[in-house]
């Protein structure tokens, strides 16, 4: 599904150029659950953003389902993103002015799904993450775990082929964290490909494969238990 070859990414300020990713090549097959690990600043989030088409790469090739997307324009990327990729963030990133229901509904609005269909799908996914009873609450009225479940619901409501999770349990206690990981595992078992950045060895164990990074480079890949 994802085939990145010889990826280079630089960050430039007026005076210095920093190499964020150096000669990175990764390959993720459809249905895989991959964890990316490494210390802060090693480039794992940058890699995830590039995989998610939120950021562009400076050199190298990126094949998404066999299509070269490295040189895609923003509008094409946005289009590909909204139909194929769901995101889960460490800080949940829910919109404060929208209710739980509306937050989850948002991707469907942007993909122009009819209202009745939207309602059905949002309710279905809210049931799945067991947050249906709080559908009319606003994010600030929920606990961290609940917020992250909403975020997961939002990520999957569009039935994306790929879910990218950036430290999804980073802001959660272990109970809530486990619940979220359980959710992701279930999604993966249902066929969704997952790429997850994490600091937690515990979380990484849920993955099929772990890619370890240091200073912008992939240093090791291990296949999970």
């Amino acid at each position, binding site marked *: 599904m994802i085939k990145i070859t010889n990826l280079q990414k630089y960050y430039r300020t007026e005076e210095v150029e920093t190499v964020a990713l150096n000669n990175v090549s990764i390959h993720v097959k459809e249905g895989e659950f991959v964890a990316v690990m490494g210390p802060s600043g090693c480039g794992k989030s940058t890699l995830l953003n590039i995989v998610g088409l*939120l950021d562009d790469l400076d050199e190298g090739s990126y094949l998404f389902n066999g299509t070269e997307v490295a040189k895609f324009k923003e*509008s094409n990327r946005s289009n590909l*993103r909204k139909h194929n990729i769901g*995101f889960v963030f460490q800080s949940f*990133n829910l*919109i*404060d002015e929208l209710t739980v229901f509306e937050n989850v509904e*948002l*991707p469907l609005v942007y993909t122009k799904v009819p209202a009745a269909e939207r309602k059905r799908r949002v309710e279905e996914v809210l049931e799945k993450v067991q947050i249906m009873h709080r559908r009319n609450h606003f994010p600030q009225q929920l606990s961290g775990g609940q917020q992250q479940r909403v975020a997961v619901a939002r990520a999957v409501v569009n039935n994306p082929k790929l879910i990218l999770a950036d430290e999804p349990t980073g802001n959660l206690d272990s109970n809530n964290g486990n619940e979220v990981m359980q959710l992701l595992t279930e999604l993966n078992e249902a066929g969704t490909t997952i790429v997850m950045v994490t600091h937690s060895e515990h979380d990484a164990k849920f993955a099929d494969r772990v890619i370890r990074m240091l200073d912008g480079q992939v240093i090791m890949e291990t296949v999970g238990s």
Partner: protein
Amino acid sequence: MLRNLKTIFRGLKKKKFYTIINILGLSISLAASILILIWVQDERSFDKFHPDYERVYKVNSHLDPEHNGSIWGSSPGPIANYARNIPEVEHATRVSQDWNVTLVNDEQKRPITGMTICYVDSNFFSMFNFPLLEGSLSGFQANYTHAFITESTAEKLFSTQQVIGKTFRYNEDLFSVAGVLKDVPQNSSIEFDVVIPLAYHAQRFTQWGGNGKWKTIDEDLGNYSFSTYIKVKHDAVPSSIGELITDSYTKARDGENSTVFVLTPLETIHLIAPDGNKSGLRMVQIFSIIAILLLVIGAVNYVNLSTARALDRAKEVGIRKVVGASRRRLFLQFVTETVVVVFFALLIAFFLIFLLRSGYNQIAQKSMSYSFHNGLIWLYIGLAIFGTLCLSSIYPAVQLSSFSPITSLKGKSLTRFSSNTMRKILVVFQFTISVTLIVCTLVIKNQLAFIRQINLGYDKDHVLTLGLPNEAYKHIDAIRDELNGNSAIQGISLTGIWNLTDYGHSTGDIDWPGKSKDNKLIVSQATIDDNFIPLMDIELLEGKNFTGLPADSSSYIINETLAKQMGLTPPYVGASMSFHDFPGQIIGVVKDFHFKSVKEKIGPMVFWTRWGAGTLYVKTTTSQVQQAINALETIYNRYPSDSPFSYTFVDEQFDSVYKSEQQTGVLFNIFSGIAIFISALGLFALATHEAQTRVKEIGIRKVLGASVFGVVRLLGKNFVMLICIAILIACPIALYLMNEWLGNFAYKTDLNAWTFVVGGVLAMIIAVITISYQAIRAARANPVDSLRDE
């Protein structure tokens, strides 16, 4: 759409402070601009309600253009007749007016004063759109005691609209009402309360002996007492029609003519004076610009706040983009948000306009509800709203929707938006306008004070003027004696000067030995008695006053300017001159005094005693004013008169000459107040936001030992800098504008640096107070709170 609105409302409610400031600023600027636009539109709509108004012209008379003679909006009676003989002319019609007359309903003994009568040709109604509501125009000229009155006049005279056949009296003549006309709209240059056939005026002219050899109005080439209107055919060239009219006139005067007749479009006569003075048009232009600037100031607030708060909105933009929102979609979302804010602002604006309507009517001397009937005003208002929307929506929407999702989610790299150059420019722009308006207001105020303090050359205090009933003039000596014997009255004088503060009665009929043939000097003339000069305390530079004896009839007193323009050398007394063909001698020269608005240079003036004088000047004292008025009223009521007793103080006449300047002063006060208020509102919100975003920095600085003053200085420094730049830009603009405005006055105050300093300091004080409130609050907050928050 609906869900979008719901989200927008939640957002607006959550950020109440900014929402209120945005809506308040926009609604005030919208209300002020719309009020100005209503006025502007009304001024521009003058005389455009007549059919084919583009083809209607008024004849102006250029008296001796080669020697810079005056230009009048009136013309002699035969002009219309000449025009009718020109093939390109469709219609020509004449209007003569009597102002401020008294009409009497004898049945109810009800005199109505202050009426305007128009004497018109029979084709007047086919050229102009003054609808007849009742009655008939047939036989209009034949029955010249038939009158057509407006609805309001009918109400005033008869307290009813059923007035056909009813009679009223004007002087000695009885008129019967043949028709009721719709009231003259406020945007008409031709004004009347009563219309009477011109035949009546013609007959009266002949009855009173005509004008010298000319016995009818159709022969009289000397009196420029008509407004002549000409409707030309399509494709006609107005200038050549003017030439043909001039040719006919010259022929009628046997080739002895220096007057040139010029056609001027009807639609311009309200804003451009016959002599080409465009101050009316200028005012409309200036006010249009102010309306636009006020709108822009309001929109700028919105833009500034939206972009300053970009940081707060960044996360939302990032999330929406990540889950699939396109830039276009976000752009539309932010535009919709602005539409909602502008909509609420508009509601409040219209409410404000509703509240302010009577104030508007009073200041503008117009009826607002009438103005709303004009379809164009709605176009103007629509444009104002659309303009505000575009100005306030596009830039923030473009900026907010442009954020890249990663940076906005991290909240990084957006600091450039907090210190946006654009925002600085906009703050400078707002304050430039505000400071400019403040300085203009101060200069106008100075000039008005200057006018007030100017040495007019006479003493206008405690002098009142009045006209007496016709019968009373027969007993004027007895009246004079009676008044002089009254202790409340310090002196009286009978003169032909009906208004000393704005007097226009001029002639070219003056001659003196050595006057060259092509000298076409036009002089002001006034009949006075021997009491006038001492009563008004006009200074005699040379010679003596009139004596009150018959010998005065060959004596003239002139002013300095005339002495110079005649080319006399001192001593002037004893020099010969002849006036209206009466030879005589100059017996005195008075110091120049202002008998017209100080906008005009003092012109040449002749005092003499020959012609009739009907205005009584009475000097009294502060404490005895009422006593003097009572004495005058008693005398007045002794004689029969249609008009009730009334009087005017010279002081009041003086004020009314500068009414339009005073109005301008009041309006500039209001405009600059609004501009500085809106700008300060915006600054307040920006300062609040600045304090909020820098709360952590302030906390750290305080922990490290910064004082409250140090923090206030830190927060205020940038803003103060911007205001300084605004002041620097505003000063030359205000200097230019006020030089232009003062150019209207022949006598004016100096533009001194202090006015600019005061204007700048005032704006700075307002700005500093505005910023300080938030800055001090931020600086006094406990640093632990802000740091713990993180």
